[in-house]
């Protein structure tokens, strides 16, 4: 079992929309190269070459969301991934204005 049967204890920083990126120094830090990881963990790390959301990892790796969150947490703890922690508060007015401008540009 990839998650060793864990179903809770998910890192609260890791939401669906949370952006994740692979660390270029990941394998150096732990000494275990990505190629030696379990296939699912390799897949996740490969998907994170560019910033990607946890939801996208789950969809593209065909892993359940809960499982994905646990594995991303494990890979983060082991130094393979950087997790761009979610903001605690609601989005601020400036961010909302950027989204409004971005959407208005859609035609």
């Amino acid at each position, binding site marked *: 079992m990839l998650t060793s049967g864990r179903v809770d204890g998910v890192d609260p920083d890791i939401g669906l929309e949370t952006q994740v990126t692979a660390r270029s120094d990941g394998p150096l830090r732990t000494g275990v190269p990505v190629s030696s990881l379990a296939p699912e963990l390799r897949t996740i790390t490969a998907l994170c070459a560019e910033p990607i959301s946890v939801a996208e990892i789950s969809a593209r790796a065909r892993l359940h969301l809960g499982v994905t969150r646990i594995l991303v947490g494990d890979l983060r703890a082991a130094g393979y991934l950087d997790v761009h922690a979610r903001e605690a508060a609601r989005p601020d*007015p400036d961010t909302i204005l950027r989204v409004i401008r971005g*959407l208005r540009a859609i035609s």
Partner: protein
Amino acid sequence: MVAGGFGVGKTTTVGAISEISPLTTEAVMTSAGVGVDDPGQATGKTTTTVAMDFGCVTIDRSLKLYLFGTPGQSRFGFMWDDLSHGALGALVVVDSSRLDDCYPAVDYFERARLPFVVAVNAFDGKLAHDLDEVRWALAIDERIPVVAFDARNRISVRDALLVLLDRALDDAVRGQTAQ
């Protein structure tokens, strides 16, 4: 968040505006008879897999808007808690001939004080009830916008989202001045 009952057009809404074709992620839900089972009886836990479709729109180089379509029934409320964290707001998609389906979502977002808009999907350009009737039937506060839109049409979805973002901006500005 794009919330609504089964078959109401959530995935169509997400797909109309997303730059990627909607992806599906699955969450496992363990329900120990939430609100339906007789507590006097031994309730076996059942697990259900809930599919959630989502898409995204790149706003600029450092900002991406995600749209998550979530089931509208109250038993999926655990997902709303999770999703509403950090969310801009919710578009509650409604089929005007099946208003009851959206009631739990409306109720939830009201309590959670998350900005939301009721967006009535005009199937084939037709509404079974006009917007005032929808507002009345759902007992929606005057301040909550009720709009009609076409889930298949990108511009129509964009405009419904812009109404929501206006609400979100109002709330955010008011939140700042209150501090």
